[in-house]
């Protein structure tokens, strides 16, 4: 049971009265005494104190602290529960040095009642490639709060989470720009074609964002697939389609010559009256 660890941590801290390493294993005897000086005790105290501003500052400072025990302090504090105003900077600080045990803490906060905390946790989880963390990100796509879904879509794109594709396609159909961008990050040739086929099923503006973002990806190819995307954008009547193609033309060098760029140029000229 996932809660077992948190209970253990809570018990340990409550019993000992000071933070213990929480890097995934129970503290060994003397382990806490080896590097206590590396983390200023006042930061530890501030993080667990009632002064929220001081606690938030302490979280940021602990994140910047190169000592590994600073990470443990953050992890322990999260295990014992933090006010949302402190939890967000604590999560942001924690993810600066990702470690496998973090996932458990972050998943717990990914279901927090406070949306800001969820956003921070889901965003952070993109740095953890384990299936449980990815599952939490995919779950975030179903969150009723739009900003949480946006964070999840961004995290899915950044974390290259294939399981997020289907829900993001559904969100794309509802016009969610974050999913358009997330899908663009995930898109390979097949997915890009699938996205292009959504014409008429997805709001034009959203589809343009997805296809335009795919075109801009330097790592996306081959050019024949880009040609297909250019033509797909060309079929969209929304004026934003011309802007997307223009952006692509502007961001792509003339040489070596690319069919996709030429195709985009022809379409733009035709749409703008044969300039």
């Amino acid at each position, binding site marked *: 049971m996932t809660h077992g660890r948190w*209970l253990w941590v809570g018990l340990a801290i409550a019993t000992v009265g000071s933070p213990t390493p929480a890097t995934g294993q129970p503290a060994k005897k003397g382990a806490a005494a080896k590097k206590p000086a590396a983390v200023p005790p006042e930061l530890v105290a501030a993080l667990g104190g009632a002064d929220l501003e001081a606690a938030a500052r302490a979280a940021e400072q602990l994140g910047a602290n190169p000592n590994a025990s600073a990470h443990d302090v953050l992890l322990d504090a999260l295990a014992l529960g933090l006010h949302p105003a402190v939890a967000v900077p604590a999560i942001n600080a924690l993810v600066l040095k990702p470690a496998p045990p973090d996932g458990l803490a972050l998943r717990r906060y990914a279901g927090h009642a406070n949306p800001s905390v969820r956003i921070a946790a889901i965003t952070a989880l993109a740095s953890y490639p384990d299936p449980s963390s990815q599952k939490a990100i995919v779950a975030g796509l179903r969150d009723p709060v739009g900003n949480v879904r946006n964070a999840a879509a961004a995290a899915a794109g950044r974390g290259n989470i294939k399981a997020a594709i289907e829900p993001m396609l559904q969100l794309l159909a509802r016009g969610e720009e974050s999913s358009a961008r997330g899908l663009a990050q995930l898109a390979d040739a097949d997915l890009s074609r699938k996205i292009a086929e959504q014409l008429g099923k997805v709001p034009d503006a959203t589809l343009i964002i997805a296809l335009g973002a795919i075109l801009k990806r330097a790592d996306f190819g081959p050019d024949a697939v880009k040609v297909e995307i250019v033509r797909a954008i060309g079929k969209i009547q929304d004026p934003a389609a011309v802007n997307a193609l223009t952006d692509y033309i502007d961001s792509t060098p003339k040489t070596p010559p690319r069919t996709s760029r030429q195709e985009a140029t022809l379409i733009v000229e035709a749409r703008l009256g044969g300039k």
Partner: protein
Amino acid sequence: MRALLLCVAVLAACGPKHAFRLSADENNAYALREALAKRQLPVSPTPINASGQPRVFVLTSGSPKTIVAYDLAAGSVLWKADADVQSRIFVGGDFIVALEGKQIVARDQGRGSPRWKVDVEGTFIGVTADAERVYVTNREGNTWWLSAYAGSSGKELWTADASGQLGAPGAHGGVVYVPFLAQWLTIVDGRTGNTLTRLRGIDEQISTLRVTSQVAYYGSKQGMFRLDERSASGKRTEATYGQVKIPAQLERTTYGRDAYDPIQQAYTAADRSRVLWSSEATTEGPMKLTDDGYAIHYFRYVLGFGNDGVLRWAYSHPRVELIASEHTGYVIAGVASNGDIVAIDPRTGAVRGRKSLGTTQPVLGATFDADGWQPTSAGEPVDTVGALVTIVRDRDARFDRVKELAATALAKQPGANVTSELLAVLSDNRAPLKLKDTVVDLLVARRDPSSLAVLTEQLAVKTDYIAKTEPDALGPVAKAIAGLATLTLDPKQVALTLAALQEHLDAANTASSDLVQVIAAMAAIGGGAERPALASHLLLYHADDDRGGDASWQKAIVAGLTTKPGPQERVVLRYVARDPRSKPALVTLIQDAIGPD
């Protein structure tokens, strides 16, 4: 002089009879016995019409309205006739009679053609018939009249006046029953117009009459007497008197039409909320209902009850209301607004027969002449659960209270499917809130161990923006689960339920009111396995302003962890109690529960 005396005697014989007087002999056992003996009644329930075939005479809407005569045994229409019917239809031996326009019109029962008509002077009060005669009450100024006409010709046979209010009469076997001043039931010889006797209700008003081929019932909204020799007492306790338990939700239900209400002398919505019963002759004690039960027709439903008021069965007519109903002795017959005819077994609720008038016009009302009808054509299985579910799901807001009654009855039926049906009410956005409250209480009180799996399935629905779902009645479901705690439950199912509850405990969007119930349910059924999850939950939110500051959450989580707390729970609770970020009220609750450090 002799001639003068003769003339006076003749005039006296020809003039109105003075049947209704304020002071007259009443509750006379001998006279009552004689009056009852005068009746010519069949030995078993039998239609009054000369053919002895069960029939129903239906009035359908339109301009003009139409009378449809229907042979229930043959399942065929006998005839249809346009008629401006303004009253109920009454059945004689070879005729039917009703107020048409402002006239009493008798029609040939075999063909439907008018046989005779008489004008009604003054205000029409009521009409009835037996095999041979038609009886009419009307009012002219301060005088009420009861008149008899030959069914064959319309010839006036006699009249009787009253200086006080007469109600609509009833008749069978050659005697007429006439309510008088809401206090008396006068029994009149139909042939001569002579008063045979009269009964005074000593502890009950007499405003309602129900006359079958064999039995006359009289009484009020409070209850009904079966007319027999014991009626002479005039008292409930010494007569054959019956009162059935009418559920509060069916409050408009009556034993019969009010004889003094002019509106009810026509077909009205009041016909759709009736107690339906038959009884057996007794020589002592209260009225003995046949099969120790009764039914209530309530719009599109017919509900069968035992004498104890416990629901035995339910019938819900598909789509439309039953407009008229009658207990014929062996079945409850009903006519629906679309012309459906149904016969229901009064013991079981099983449908014994279905027929159709084939009318395209809505039915306004109907009169059954079907005593003794025993159709056996349909053997549909009894589906009380199905009928109750139909009632509970009925969209008609008029029946919200009936739905509560049906839900209550449904909850008493065994089986996990019943739990599913009750849960469906909670999931129904259009179900009235009061009904939902009732269902929640029923689910909690139901305490059916087999419900746990169904309740757990209900927990599977989560908040999902893509699927557009929200948890269905999470709080009530959790409350119902908690209600099962003291029963012997399948440990595997408990583990599944606990896991499902925990998902809602950990979910971001669980409403505070639901969360409280989830925590309580976990604590109730978890047997200790829930404590790590609850402890983690407490730690996560104890420093949170919103959830941590919610008094109901504080109480729930502390209660959940302090029910037989182990050492680990005590350590966590003490930590939270010492934490300066914890809300003071939370700290107080913990200290109250486990004591100070």
